[in-house]
């Protein structure tokens, strides 16, 4: 479903003209994902995981290489069309949605939950369909009367559930979970992970779960990629293989979790 091929991306360094240069963030990332799969992308903070996520959502364009969804270059997709603008129902397939780590900045503080959920459905009849929006809330185990609430009236866990419901609103082919449970407390983290697991089983969703938390990744994912310094350094196809990793950084990460 998703093919990331030799993606290179650099950011311009800040500084004076003569000191300016490029700082490489992604250095030839290559991997693929199957439909219905949950792939974990684990690595230290600053290793380039979220930047890779932005490339996959199409909001950052790589200097070299490309990301393909169902064989089509993500950066040349008609996103508005894929999200169903001007159609009766949201587009199915070819859509990437995202859930962020920081739920506070993930939603417009001026929007009510109704507007938050309707945003990706804009231009479709479903945007104004209260029963569809209520069904989305039910999917993430939130009561229907939350539609009229503002984000500051919700707890962190509830707000993250709203963000998950928003990500599912347009029936995406792939949901990118960018440290989606890292800023929640442990009990809420477990609830949200269970919710994501159930949603995957119910709807056959595909997740790309970006995290630095190995425990959360092993709880949810079928396969794990270890990411370090802008590269995929190790691939683990089943959780049983975790003990056989060869890469030094990956072994350190596993040892740290076990310790």
């Amino acid at each position, binding site marked *: 479903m998703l093919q990331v091929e030799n993606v290179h991306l650099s950011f311009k360094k800040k500084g004076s003209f003569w000191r300016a240069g490029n700082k490489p963030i992604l250095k030839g990332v290559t991997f693929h994902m199957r439909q219905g799969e949950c792939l974990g992308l684990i690595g230290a903070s600053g290793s380039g995981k979220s930047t890779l996520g*932005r490339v996959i*959502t*199409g*909001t950052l364009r790589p200097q070299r290489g490309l990301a393909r969804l169902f064989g089509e270059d993500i950066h040349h997709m*008609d*996103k*508005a*069309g*894929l*999200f169903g*603008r001007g159609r009766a129902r949201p587009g199915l397939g070819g859509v*990437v*949605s*995202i859930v*962020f780590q*920081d739920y*506070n*900045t*993930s*939603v*417009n*503080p*001026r929007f009510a939950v109704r507007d938050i959920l309707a*945003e*990706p459905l*804009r231009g479709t009849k479903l945007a104004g369909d209260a029963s569809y929006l209520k069904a989305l809330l039910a999917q993430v185990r939130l009561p229907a009367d939350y539609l009229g609430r503002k*984000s*500051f009236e919700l707890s962190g866990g509830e707000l993250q559930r709203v963000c998950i419901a*928003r990500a599912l609103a*347009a029936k995406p082919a792939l949901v990118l979970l960018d440290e989606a449970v890292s800023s929640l407390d442990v009990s809420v983290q477990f609830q949200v992970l269970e919710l994501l697991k159930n949603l995957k089983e119910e709807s056959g969703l595909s997740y790309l779960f970006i995290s630095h938390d190995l425990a959360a990744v092993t709880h949810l994912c079928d396969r794990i990629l270890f990411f370090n310094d802008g590269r995929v350094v190790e691939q683990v196809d089943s959780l049983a293989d975790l003990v056989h990793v060869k890469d030094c950084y990956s072994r350190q990460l596993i040892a740290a979790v076990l310790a």
Partner: protein
Amino acid sequence: MLRNLLEDRVALLCLAVIGVTVLAGLFAPYVAPHDPLAGNILYKFKTMSWNYPLGTDQQGRCVLSRLIYGIQPTILLSLVTMAATITLGAAYGLVSGSAGGLVDEGLMRFCDVMLSFPSQVMILAVVGMLGVGMENVIIANILIKWAFYARMIRGSVLGYRNRNYVVFSRTTGSGSWFILSRHMLPAVLPEIVVLASLDTGWVILNISTLSFLGLGVQAPAPEWGAMLNEARQVIVAHPGQMLAPGLAVLTLVAAFNMLGDSLRDALEIKGSGR
């Protein structure tokens, strides 16, 4: 923000001063005791009385009536100037901040050029080229101030451009207009309001200054700066003539400035929470 503002006594006092002034200006024909242009040389320099609460000027015209009629050009012209300046600056700043890259660089360098001119010299140059008159004073004020707003608003937009909800909106294919109108503009609007209220005082002062210099509202039309200019001619013999228009400018400018401070405080309290 509104609740925080209404709990602030200074803000309420400023709002009351501005509100009463605006109402007096709007209903000037009903509130003013005399015709502001009708003078009687026999009544010149009259002291305060029931008939002339603030006395009369050197042509025997009622100072209070002139002060009340002077509200309209002073405040109306200031608000027109501010509205035009903010619209131009906000649109420029929003486009520049949202576009980023070379477009942003180009637009900002043009802003830098505009900001590099000394403001008073620029105003005098523009009025000198276009001619004396209120329309040209407004154009001059807009020309020197819009770049400042563009810079400030562009800075705010940069802060919001990479917020997760904006990134999500881009991820789902939302267009630039939707992101600007639904996410960016409402986010920077409180900051624009604060800046506007802080600068309205500056514009009032500037318009009064230009009228004082004889470049804005022309005599015998009542305007506070023009009234000060007329009072200047008799400052040695009758220094009290400067008092009424001078205090009026001072009070209104202080009210707008303090309201701006209160608005900024109210905004900061909201910003610190979720």
